[in-house]
């Protein structure tokens, strides 16, 4: 999927967001084990490297030396900022890979596995019908003890054309379809985060919880098909609901300032959902 022009990857040198802090606590829990001498971390859709801000305060130099960091994002100014950030952290190894997120598994060295994969604040920017492939490739790239940490918001402000934000329940149903289709009995535990202006959600998927030995490649097509079907259903339902709300607004017009903002939000959603389903206006 081409990058979203409205997207504005958050970057504040002085502030570590709570979702990034959560990811770092998970990372810390692995690194503090004296038996762990090295871990591979893939920071997928790393943006400007916001997760790395203040990382040196969260993880000691000793722990950072155990990290082999791979940042991945589209080739633009954002990833250059992330590179600068990562290079100053004293990681055992640091590399930046560039390309579309949907292509990440083709860009990375074949067979390379990761102990920790983060995908934060990015799911809404991924084309919904590319999401199954990306999610599958993420879990397929996990080492036997690896963990995939995902965090995203259920609505966006400022609005972004083409972005589709998922609720916690929707994310749960997508991930359940994915795990079920690869033959895992694991149920995704999706946590909800109450923020002031939106709700967030997170999930951690541990490869060791899947109950599947060996690699998953041969299950890719079935998994992508089943997950795509689930996503299509969700998109169609969201589209129907959005159209219905816009019809109501078209009939009566907005009656308050808030409703004017609602109209803008709904029209953005309408465009994004139609675009996701390959429909033209």
């Amino acid at each position: 999927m081409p990058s979203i022009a409205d997207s504005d990857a958050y970057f504040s040198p002085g502030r570590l967001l709570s979702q990034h802090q959560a990811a770092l606590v998970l990372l810390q829990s692995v690194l503090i084990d004296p038996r762990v001498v090295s871990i591979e971390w893939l920071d997928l859709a790393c943006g400007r490297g916001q997760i790395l801000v203040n990382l040196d305060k969260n993880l000691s130099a000793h722990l950072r030396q155990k990290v082999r960091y791979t940042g991945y994002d589209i080739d633009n100014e954002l990833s250059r900022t992330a590179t600068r950030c990562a290079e100053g952290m004293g990681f055992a190894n640091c590399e930046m890979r560039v390309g579309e997120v949907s292509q990440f598994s083709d860009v990375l060295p074949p067979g390379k596995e990761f102990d920790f994969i983060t995908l934060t604040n990015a799911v809404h920017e991924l084309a919904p019908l590319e999401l199954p492939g990306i999610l599958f490739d993420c879990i397929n790239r996990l080492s036997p003890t690896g963990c995939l940490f995902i965090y995203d918001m259920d609505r966006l402000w400022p609005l972004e054309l083409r972005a589709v934000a998922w609720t916690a329940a929707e994310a749960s149903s997508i991930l359940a379809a994915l795990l079920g289709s690869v033959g895992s009995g694991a149920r995704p535990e999706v946590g909800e985060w109450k923020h002031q202006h939106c709700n967030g959600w997170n999930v951690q998927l541990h490869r060791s919880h899947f109950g599947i030995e060996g690699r998953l490649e041969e299950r890719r097509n079935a998994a992508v098909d089943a997950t795509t079907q689930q996503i299509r259903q969700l998109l169609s339902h969201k589209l129907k609901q959005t159209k219905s709300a816009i019809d109501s607004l078209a009939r009566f017009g907005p009656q308050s300032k808030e409703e004017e903002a609602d109209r803008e939000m709904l029209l953005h959603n309408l465009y994004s959902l139609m675009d996701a389903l390959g429909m033209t206006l």
Partner: protein
Amino acid sequence: MNKVFVSCTKKSVPSVQAFLRYLAEHPHHDIDFIVTDSSLLSPGSFRQDSIQGADVVVMFIGSDEPSSNVIYEIGFAIGLGKRVAFVVDGNEVRIPFAMTTFPMFIAKSDSGWLEELVKFIRSAPSTQTPGDRPEFASARDELVALRETPELLNQLSRSRFEELIARYFEEMSSDLTVRVVQELTEFDILINDDESKKTIAVILKKVTAQSYVGIGDIFELVTVFQNFNMDLMVCITTGRFTDSAIDFANSSPMPLRLFNLNEFISIPPGNFLRYFREQAKPH
């Protein structure tokens, strides 16, 4: 009993003190002050609760054009439907045009303005504060009283509104098991109809009587509630729903019904249970 909130600026403190002295010398048992000394000790401090609990708000502006803080307090009080009056020191005070329609008293050396101000305060209809709230025989009686008095409705706390609606459902039928939801969830009250085995989720939108609950709120409700297997969702507001919100709810395949307070208590008590059973989705 009329409760008065006194707001003052630093420069107006002498006039406020004159006013309080006058009241001490001429006691009026039907006047009660929510803020007296604390306001004088820290002029300009904004007391949201105090304004909410007052029947009358008297703004002592002093001799300067009112500051933005004073104007904020005035707007807040007017928005809540309070009776508002100003006291200025002298004829030369510049008052914003929009405020000139409110009663204004000019503090002078004689006591005429004080008598007039007290008369104004006593003439305001008392809305009675929570401490003075009369006992109602039923939640229905209280809700009917609230419907008739938007000022009282605006003062009602969210938890009290929750409690009243829950009690109202209980009063309407002994077949209903009603629980105010304490957890942080999307709904406020859960009702189980013991006979039909149906579950009703109630969501309350406590806003001022003049405010709208728009389509965005209802869209969010529908999005959230599709994940719960409720037989009926009832959203009740102390304000008003926009036409778009009502239209959207009515066209939704989900069993969602919107009521403003008047509509809710207009459901005939004799038909209350049957009405909600009919609205719930069939099992």
